Structures are given as structure tokens and as C-alpha cells.
């Protein structure tokens, strides 16, 4: 039995907004009661369309965003407070993040060497230690030692993402959050970076929280996946099981849209969802998905289903399964 590395309990993240002359208080419910459990050494894939709250979740885990409600535990310790403030409970280096855009996640004015050294500098390492570790890291991510003396603008997107990865693993973290880390790259480069992430995971026993909207990439990377819709996790389970046999109507629609070669042979039905994802300011009453669901029932309009275990390790929030 693997032990849990990250646990989130009922995480809510609401951003208040004030509108108009009467300042009517509304709030964007980016996350609305997310429970999550990530096990040591696993890759947890998080999928969902834009605005479903994936990145907010990543920011909460990374300690960049304080949740409105709920607690985050890292190996049983509460780490809900923001990272750079009250970080007593957590060794800072334990959770690191690789961002989406390698063009904005590294400072254009700094040398590659300085960028990779930064976490060590913050952790208070000496100069020679930093230099040695930087060289090691460059080699680990497949860059030459000379790269340390170059500037970001001299590198390609893939190389920059390697730099960002080197920086993230510099202090030997346990959990690495990859927030759309490959979606800004070309497909061929994506594959290289994914392989690099894979190799690093084996070598250092890393746990990944892997966020993406590309279902193919997530399938390749993840052991467990969670599907997000409007700030909630609607389905969770082992990756292959979810892909082979999606239960939630939303997951079904997503999976049916993955372009495959078999698709033509089996003449699989494509489920095209109607309409847009509703605004997170005005969440639909009842089930979040009922406005677009092809299997809508009476109960869906009134009661929001809870995430419930339907099989061993398989959770779905849908009235069809209760």
C-alpha cells in the first residue's frame, strides 16, 4: 500500500468581485469543494477544460494561493498557509512547480546558471555547492555545462523548459506540480520533455501532479486521473479504467473526442457537448453539468451529486450511479 503524500480536504477557492455602482458582491467559484489524495510515487493527472479550476488547484498546492476553505496536508502535516510566509510545517523544497510557458517562467535578465541556482541561493547554499549542483542538474536534464553561461533568449522553448525542470528539481523535491508544462511546446519537443519527466520520476522517486488539457498526454503520463468540471472533481480513477470505461457523462464526452486510429474501425460514437461551460460566477443549481448533460434527469436540476465510490478506487459524482 502506497502512502499518501498530498491530501486536500474540501478545498474551496472563491474570488470575490465587485460589480457596478451598487457593488453587488459576487464571487468566482474557481474551486468548490475539492477532495484529493495523491500517493507517493504516482502521477496524478488532472484534466479539464479552461476555467475548470485546474490551475487554481495547482496554485493552492504550490502555496501561491490561500484557499477560502479547506486544508492541504503534505504527508500528514497541514501546509495550508502560504509558502513564503508561515512555512514551518514544510521543507520549502518538498513541493516545486514547473510552469506552462517557458518563455515567462524564467527571468530573461538572468543567466541560465543563475536561474537554476536560485532555489539553492534561497535555501542558503554556498557558492561552490551551488555551482557543482547546477552542473549536475544541467547534465540531468540533458543540457551542456556551457549552457549555464547563456541567456534564456539564446535557447529554444524545449531547452528553456528543461531549465525550468532543472530549477524545480534542484533541491530534490518530493512532489512536482506540472501545470500544463508541455502544452506550450511543439509535439516532438513535448515527447522529449515527457520522457525527461518520466526518467526523473524513476530516478528520484518523484510524485507528479500533472495538469493538462491534452488527454493523450495525460493518458501517457498518469497512473491516476481526476476529471474537473467547474471547480469540482467529477470522476476519479485509475487512468486506464477511466479511459476504457468512462462513467460520468462529461468524461464520456471527453474520451469520445480523443482522436484515435481505432476510432474509424469501431465507428465509435462521438458525443458532442452542447453549449459552453457555464460561468463560474453563476453556477447552475443542482448538478454542475446538467445544462449540457445528454442524460439529464429531474433530480439533476435540484441536487448536486456527491463524489461517491462506485468501484474500488473509482469515484464518480453523478446521479446515474447512485
Amino acid at each position, binding site marked *: 500500500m502506497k502512502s499518501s503524500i498530498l491530501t486536500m480536504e474540501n478545498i474551496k477557492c472563491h474570488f470575490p468581485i465587485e460589480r457596478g455602482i451598487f457593488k453587488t458582491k459576487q464571487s468566482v467559484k474557481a474551486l468548490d469543494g475539492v477532495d484529493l489524495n495523491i500517493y507517493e510515487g504516482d502521477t496524478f493527472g488532472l484534466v479539464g477544460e479552461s476555467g475548470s479550476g485546474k490551475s487554481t488547484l495547482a496554485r493552492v498546492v*504550490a*502555496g*501561491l494561493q490561500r484557499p477560502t476553505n479547506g486544508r492541504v496536508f503534505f504527508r500528514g502535516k497541514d501546509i495550508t498557509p502560504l*509558502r*513564503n510566509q508561515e*512555512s514551518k510545517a514544510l521543507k*520549502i*523544497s518538498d*513541493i*516545486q*512547480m514547473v*510552469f*506552462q*510557458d517557458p518563455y*515567462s*517562467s*524564467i*527571468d*530573461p*535578465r538572468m*543567466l541560465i546558471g543563475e536561474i537554476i541556482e*536560485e*532555489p539553492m541561493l*534561497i*535555501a542558503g547554499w554556498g557558492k561552490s555547492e551551488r555551482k557543482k549542483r547546477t552542473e549536475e542538474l544541467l547534465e540531468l536534464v540533458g543540457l551542456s555545462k556551457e549552457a549555464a553561461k547563456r*541567456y*534564456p*533568449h*539564446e535557447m529554444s522553448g524545449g531547452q528553456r523548459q528543461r531549465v*525550468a525542470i532543472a*530549477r524545480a528539481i534542484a*533541491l530534490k523535491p518530493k512532489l512536482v506540480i506540472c501545470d500544463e508544462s508541455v502544452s506550450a511546446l511543439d509535439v516532438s519537443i513535448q515527447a522529449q520533455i515527457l520522457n525527461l519527466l518520466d526518467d526523473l520520476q524513476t530516478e528520484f522517486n518523484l510524485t507528479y501532479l500533472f495538469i493538462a488539457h491534452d488527454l493523450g498526454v495525460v493518458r501517457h503520463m498518469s497512473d491516476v486521473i481526476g476529471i474537473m468540471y467547474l471547480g469540482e472533481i467529477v470522476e476519479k480513477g485509475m487512468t486506464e479504467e477511466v479511459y476504457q470505461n468512462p462513467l460520468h457523462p462529461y468524461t464520456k464526452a471527453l474520451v469520445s473526442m480523443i482522436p484515435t486510429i481505432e476510432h474509424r474501425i469501431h465507428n465509435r460514437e462521438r458525443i458532442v457537448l452542447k453549449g459552453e461551460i457555464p460561468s463560474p460566477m453563476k453556477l447552475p443549481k443542482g448538478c454542475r453539468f446538467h445544462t449540457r448533460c445528454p442524460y439529464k434527469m429531474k433530480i439533476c436540476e435540484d441536487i448536486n451529486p456527491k463524489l461517491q465510490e462506485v468501484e474500488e478506487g473509482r469515484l464518480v459524482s453523478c446521479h446515474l450511479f447512485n
Partner: protein
Amino acid sequence: MYALTKHPGFWSIFTGGLVVLILILSAVFAPIIATHPPDQQVLSDRLLPVSWAEGGSAAHILGTDTLGRDIFSRILYGARISLTVGLAAAIGAGIIGTTFGLISGFYGGKIDYIVQKIVEVFQSFPFLLLAISIMAISGQSLGILILVLILQRWVEYCRVVRGETLSLKSREYVQAAKTMGAKNYFAIIRHILPNSVAPVIIIATYSLASSIITESSLSFLGMGVPPHIPTWGSMLSEGRDYMYAAPWLSIIPGICIFVTVIAVNLLGDGVRDWFDPSIRGRS
């Protein structure tokens, strides 16, 4: 390694720096270089044109003013006040404005609100009234004059740096520094300040020039330096009455201000290019 001269910004720094250096040296060594005492009046030699023009005298290289004072010597002595005032005001206001801009933009919320309200008060308050009140309370001196100019100028830096900071603080590399556990001041000094330095240099060059001019209008109202001490600004405004009869009275100090501004501008541009990695390596 490549030659230093190929480094971007080298020639700008070299040219601008050389001119600024010459200006500063001539101000420092004014007593040695000057051909006449700056306040010596020879009324029989009034309004002599520059020495190479018709009617010019070799004794007065750049001619004389309405009271027969030697313009060349007055320019040299004037450089002392004008350069001190200009540089001190630009640098002092730059430091204060940039600091508050960084704090205001980075921390946001109540701090931002308070700092920006103070900025608005400074912007809406008539500057001359402020200057007069301060001078009335504390008396005249060069230090007070510089202080008044700093009070006038810091708001521009503050506004611009705040704006830059607002956009920079949400950049992912600043976020990344935070996930690495960086304290706020670390992120500000290491990432935000270096990336917002370009507009600061531009404001500094502009604010240097306008401080030299503002000094003259304050002196004109009797609130700057006493009238017998020459400054470029005051020479410029004194010459205005004789624009048709003796244009060199204003043109010469005007050229001096112009050259200073161009030189500082070049220097600033060069410094910015020197430290901007993205144009390094291009020739």
C-alpha cells in the same frame, strides 16, 4: 570574449560618459579655467557678442551679458549649481520614487491605496505653492532647493515603477521564486527591480533636464539660489528679454542644458543596453 567596443551600449556609454565627465570636470575646476570672475561687471563691455562674431572681443570668448559679465566664466560656474541640482534631484527622486513604486505595486491593497493617495496629493498640489511654503518655513538653501525638486519629481518614478511592478509581479518567474520560498524582498530586488530599470532611466534623463529648468524658475521668483550666483537656468531666463538684440545670451546656456541632457540620455541608453541580455551579441 569579444572586444569591449563590440559590447552593446559601449559607444553610447563612452560618448555620453565622456561628455558628462568633461562637464563635471569643468564645473569642479571652474576657478582655474574661467577667464574672469563670474560676477565681475564691466559696464563698458556690455552685450559683447561671441568672440568669432563681428564686434566680438577675444577677451570674452562667449561674449558678455547685460551687465558686462563674462558668459564663458558664468557658464563654468553655473555648471556647478545646475549639474548638482539636476543630478541630485534626478537621483534622489529616482531612489525615493522607485522604492515607493516597488512597495506600492508589489504589496497592493491598503499599502498601495495609501501610497497612491499620497502621489495624487503631490500631483494635484500646486508645485510653486509647495515650494514657497517650504522655503518660507525653512529658509533658502541649495539643499532645500534640491529637496523641493525631489518632492516634485518622485511621483513620476513612483507611478511608472508601480505600473511595471504590477505587471511583473504576476510573471511566472516571480511566482516560481515564491514557490521556492523566496521572501518578498528577494523577489523584488532580484527580479522586479532589474526588469523595471529601463523606464526609470528614461524618466531620470528627462527629470534631470527639467530640474535644471525648474531651478531657474524658482530662482527667478527669488526662491532658489541668490541672483548673483550664476546658474544655466537663470542665465537662460535673463537672456530672454534680449532674444533679438543678443540671442547668444540664451542660446549658450540653452546649448549647455541640451548637451547635458543628450549626454545623460546617451549614457542612460548605453547602460540599459549594456545590461539587457536580449540585445547582447547583436552587432
